[in-house]
């Protein structure tokens, strides 16, 4: 199933993207694509039907929210349509964007397109994109440079909510419009020259209200940290990362269920380093959908219901994985080996959820501890299937050896065979118990070379060259920030120095400003 999941993501989901990027596909096409993906995931073919063990909606959730991270074709189609609309807004000089503007938004400047409300019917491509205008409008903002394009009240700017939503004040808005304070730069010019006057109503209670509101507004505007320049304002995508539209972010924004905290269970299931097939099995197990006899009976299957591992009790998930004598023996070995009690309730999902995270000081042992439940559940499931379908069984010791070998190999790959003995005596004992001599596996792969170190003393540049040393600093992130630098010749003589303050800003921006000013001066 893990392999099929990869194939769906890389082939079945990728193939229709080109079509989706330009057209709103008909519903029957989307349904046909969805059926193809679903049947392939669960292994159904035309003649050989298989059960879909988990609801498709659940499958299409993010991995952190309990799904497999697949994208429903309808959702993909919508996201690609939104991308089309974003491209129109952010690339106004491309020929197709100019054609659209001439055809559907005649008389509007490109920076007004973000606020378009009444949209004409048009070509199929236009129709596919235009339905996402509101979504884009709600999740974009202006990055202020000259302040000539962004509107003070109506637009979101500097990644903060619109002022008209923050301050529900028609009187203020009408005052602003009356004073010609429509765009950000107009407001800025007036406040810079101290021409800005507070609206002063006649009644005292209104006056109090207005001055309080003004303070709020002033504080709000100060928080937006604008640094004016001669460049044009830029339209940015309002989400977590870079300010540019990505389909992944748009998809998450639109379809992820962000209500409440994320369940730690899924972080344990999709643990880095765990084999994909084991992670996928753990996912099914956590959803209690693996086909043990109790689940088969629910689906109308009639047959023997004894656990094949002990042949004593009725087979249920909790019995097979926790209370069966074979499982108990293996769990006891794990606890003895790690000198630590594992969470051992009857509910497998709760046990995975409450599995300790990083209980050891040694990083290697923490990695090992994280791998334990996945490998053990998977081994028990394989043994159960082997006893039913192949009629072969292995002893507990044989299973334990296989289990240890699997974990050792996985750790060897994770650590590039480079392990240090832990310092604490108890952890050293665990290390020996597991026989973590990972160098035994070091046959093929060698560790990648480490990057070279940076020079620790200043050296002059080559003849006829200059050297710029720059730095940025911020007390806090963000906090009071500054930058500075020096340009020196090949003799080491200082040619030019510079420093400046940035007000409240982040460390990265301070560094960047230092570099930028230095390069400008060097020119």
């Amino acid at each position, binding site marked *: 199933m893990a392999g099929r999941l990869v194939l769906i993501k890389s082939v079945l989901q990728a193939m229709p993207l080109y079509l989706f990027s330009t057209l709103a596909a008909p519903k029957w096409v989307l349904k046909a694509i969805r059926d193809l993906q679903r049947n392939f995931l669960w292994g159904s073919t035309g003649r050989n039907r298989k059960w879909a063990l988990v609801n498709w909606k659940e499958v299409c959730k993010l991995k952190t929210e309990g799904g497999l991270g697949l994208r429903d074709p309808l959702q993909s189609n919508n996201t690609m349509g939104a991308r089309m609309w974003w491209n129109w807004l952010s690339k106004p000089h491309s020929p197709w964007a100019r054609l659209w503007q001439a055809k559907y938004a005649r008389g509007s400047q490109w920076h007004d397109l973000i606020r378009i409300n009444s949209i004409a019917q048009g070509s199929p491509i236009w129709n596919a994109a235009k339905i996402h205008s509101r979504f884009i409008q709600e999740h974009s903002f202006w990055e202020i440079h000259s302040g000539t394009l962004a509107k003070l009240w109506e637009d979101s700017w500097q990644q903060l909510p619109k002022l008209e939503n923050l301050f529900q004040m028609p009187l203020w808005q009408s005052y602003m419009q009356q004073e010609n304070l429509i765009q950000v730069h107009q407001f800025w010019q007036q406040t810079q020259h101290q021409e800005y006057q507070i609206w002063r109503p006649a009644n005292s209670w209104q006056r109090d209200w207005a001055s309080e509101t003004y303070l709020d507004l002033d504080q709000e505007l100060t928080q937006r940290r604008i640094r004016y320049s001669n460049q044009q304002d830029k339209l940015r995508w309002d989400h977590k990362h870079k300010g*540019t539209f990505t389909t992944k972010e748009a998809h998450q924004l639109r379809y992820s269920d962000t209500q409440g905290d994320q369940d730690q269970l899924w972080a344990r299931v999709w643990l880095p380093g765990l084999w994909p097939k084991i992670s996928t099995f753990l996912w099914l197990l956590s959803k209690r959908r693996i086909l043990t006899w109790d689940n088969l009976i629910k689906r109308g299957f009639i047959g023997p219901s004894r656990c094949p591992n002990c042949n004593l009790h009725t087979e249920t998930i909790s019995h097979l994985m926790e209370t069966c004598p074979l499982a108990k023996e293996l769990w006891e070995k794990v606890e003895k080996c790690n000198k630590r009690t594992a969470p051992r309730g009857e509910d497998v999902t709760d046990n995975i959820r409450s599995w300790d995270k990083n209980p050891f000081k040694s990083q290697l042992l923490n990695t090992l501890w994280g791998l334990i439940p996945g490998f053990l559940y998977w081994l028990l499931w394989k043994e159960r299937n082997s006893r039913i379908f192949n009629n072969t069984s292995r002893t507990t010791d044989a299973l334990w050896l296989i289990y240890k070998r699997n974990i050792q190999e996985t750790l060897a790959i994770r650590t590039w065979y480079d392990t240090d003995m832990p310092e604490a005596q108890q952890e050293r004992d665990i290390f020996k118990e597991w026989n973590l001599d990972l160098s035994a596996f070091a046959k093929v792969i060698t560790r990648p070379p480490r990057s070279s170190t940076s*020079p620790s*003393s200043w050296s002059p540049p080559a003849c006829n060259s200059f050297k710029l040393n720059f*730095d940025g600093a911020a007390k806090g992130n963000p906090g009071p920030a*500054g930058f500075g630098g020096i340009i020196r010749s090949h003799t*080491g003589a200082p040619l030019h*120095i510079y*420093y400046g*303050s*940035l007000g409240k800003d982040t460390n990265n921006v301070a560094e960047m400003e230092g570099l930028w000013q230095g390069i400008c001066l060097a020119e």
Partner: protein
Amino acid sequence: MEGDSLILITAAKKIQAGATAVKVATSWRLLSRLESLEAKLQNPHSITFQHVRRTANQVADRMANQGVSQTSQYFSGSLDIVEDEQLKKDCIALVQKDLSPPRMRVVVSHTSLWLVSRASVRPNKPCIPGGLALNVTARSI
């Protein structure tokens, strides 16, 4: 090594190698500045970016701290016209220090002595089989 500078220098190197600013930026506030840098690097300049440790960047470090302590000032010019006497004195001292040959102090972090059985034990440091080898790992500060 300083983390912040390393992030920026890595981004600048990637842009110089042909990556776009969008690919390497970590935030939209950094993106606009990286876009400006990208445009600037398209001019035929020969710029080599190199990350250095704080000890090799002391003058710039002092300048940046001066920038933080200032509230709304920007200074750019030669060292001679700096008005702040303390800053001027510090800068001259640090520039002189950079020009003087580095004072070497060796810190021995690992020493071991063993009998060399084969010449190929340490291929990068040839030694005579049958003799004694002193393995010293040292670093200068």
